[in-house]
């Protein structure tokens, strides 16, 4: 069920044009983190895992043409707007907002604390042009910009595929991108920030736990569940012949998955914590 508009929802709605070419808008629907399920069912869990505050949905209609739908999310922070954007990076950069992707009639972008999806129920040359135009106009209406998560600075640049980095809080989202374990062995939760980055066929996971004790618990949990046979180095050659290694430092835990060699795994961990020593990370 849609909710009456709050002041934040009115601000969010003000970013969205009333018309899209000859398409006319219908009445807005407004949702929060509880009512989002009434609108987009299970997909709501993705946005809730990124602390969504609100959603304004506006549908554009023209008889005989596919509908266009704008879903504008207030994610509460630029970090979470960036994060939910990284959940689906499929598509070509449309150069809209602070990061964008377009594919098959769907445009998504983030700017400041907002994540926006503009969607054509059927892609045609006409609807594609309207989707991109709507996106540009919405992005232009959002006044500010926001910072990407600080944790990204701990990703060693050597070998990093920067365009495929994911930022998240939940183990379900981690498993979505790279299955680790059915249980939450890395003890992720709303208060943890985590990144997952590709390095060739390997992955680097880095999480900030807010306190050294919490990081130590997460490291021990992961090691017990995933690397019980690992030696003092925290590295192990796993069933696929590649190397996984875990290390903690301060409030951080870093895991290298599927490195080509033990040396590569350990070197990457060294690089993460060298970067961490050079920066203030919570």
């Amino acid at each position, binding site marked *: 069920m849609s909710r009456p508009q709050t002041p934040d929802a009115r601000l969010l709605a003000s970013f969205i044009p009333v018309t899209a070419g000859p398409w006319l808008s219908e009445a807005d629907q407004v949702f929060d983190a509880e009512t989002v399920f009434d609108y987009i*069912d*299970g*997909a709501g869990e993705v946005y809730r895992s990124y602390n969504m505050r609100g959603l304004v949905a506006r549908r554009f209609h023209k008889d005989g043409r596919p509908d266009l739908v704008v879903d504008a999310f207030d994610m509460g922070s630029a970090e979470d707007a960036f994060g939910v954007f990284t959940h689906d990076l499929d598509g070509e950069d449309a150069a809209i907002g602070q990061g964008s992707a377009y594919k*098959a*009639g769907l445009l998504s972008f983030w700017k400041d604390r907002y994540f926006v999806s503009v969607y054509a129920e059927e892609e045609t040359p006409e609807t594609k042009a309207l989707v991109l135009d709507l996106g540009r106009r919405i992005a232009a209406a959002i006044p500010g910009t926001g910072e990407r998560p600080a944790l990204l600075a701990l990703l060693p640049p050597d070998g990093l595929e920067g365009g495929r980095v994911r930022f998240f809080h939940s183990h379900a989202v981690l*498993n979505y991108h790279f299955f*680790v*374990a059915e249980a939450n*062995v890395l003890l992720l939760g709303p208060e943890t920030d985590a990144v997952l980055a590709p390095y060739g066929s390997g992955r680097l996971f880095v999480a900030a736990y807010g306190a050294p004790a919490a990081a130590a618990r997460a490291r021990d949990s992961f090691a017990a569940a995933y690397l019980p046979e690992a030696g003092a180095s925290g590295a192990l050659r796993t069933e696929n012949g590649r190397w996984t290694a875990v290390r903690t430092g301060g409030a951080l835990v870093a895991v290298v998955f599927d490195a080509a060699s033990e040396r590569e795994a350990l070197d990457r961990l060294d690089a993460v914590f060298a970067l961490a020593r050079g920066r203030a990370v919570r």
Partner: protein
Amino acid sequence: MAKTFTRRDFLKTAAAAPLAGAVLPRLSGEPAPLAPSAAPAADRVRVVLVRDPAPLGAGGAPPAEVVQRMLDDAVKALLGESDIVKAWKTLIRPDDVVGIKTNAWRYIPTTAEVEQAIKRRVMDAGVAETDIGIDDRGVLRHPVFQRATALVNARPMRTHHWSGVGSLIKNYIMFTPQPSAWHGDTCADLAAIWDLPAVKGKTRLNVLVMFTPLFHSVGPHNYAKDYVWEYKGLVVSLDPVAADAVGLRIIEAKRRAHFGDDRPLPMTPHHIALAETRHHLGVADPARIELVKLGWDDGILV
């Protein structure tokens, strides 16, 4: 922490365990599991897949008479009965109050053709029209569902952002007052819904609609026309878990054919396997499913 299934366990077991390969995470780059060895016939659950090449209408279904024939052929094959009314009379009693639990998702609904085909046969089994209800999101408030003694479960299969696939098992989530409460651990325990008083023991037939399945989810609305294809099938069983397991195999096969690699569903639909192993609702193990295929076999994928 109790022992948990990890990526390493998958790497150890994927090639050896057909169930794990079919309904637990299959990792990119890992080979698809070998075809399962069948259990003896007496130990297997029957699932019927029926397809017809008739063109689909604007609503995404074949013509009504084609849908009726597909459903009838499937039910007769499922129950081993040559007379369709006799077959339905083994499922439904004249004094039953029947709820047809449909699915009204905007982009790929169950379709009126399937709903009406089911309704017709329920009436042929002797149930008065006033004792038949068809609903999705309103089932808890619907007067027929509130006094229902029997349910027919009918929905399309599609990929789903959180549960992996929208399934027959998941279709009963609207019988709960707070559906979002069942999303934990990516919907692992949806099968437990089937123990709720509103549904327990009432389901007489499961129909998984595969006219235009969605095989890949994008965006908040989960849907893109590019990832829908005309499979033109119905999967019918007394066992919702077995029907879902067959539907999932079809979806996974389509993904392999489309993407050119063995790309797993991003969110593993582990609720199907757990429906068997944890909740004992039905059979997900392909080795214990007898799949009967009827009709059109071009592009059948399984």
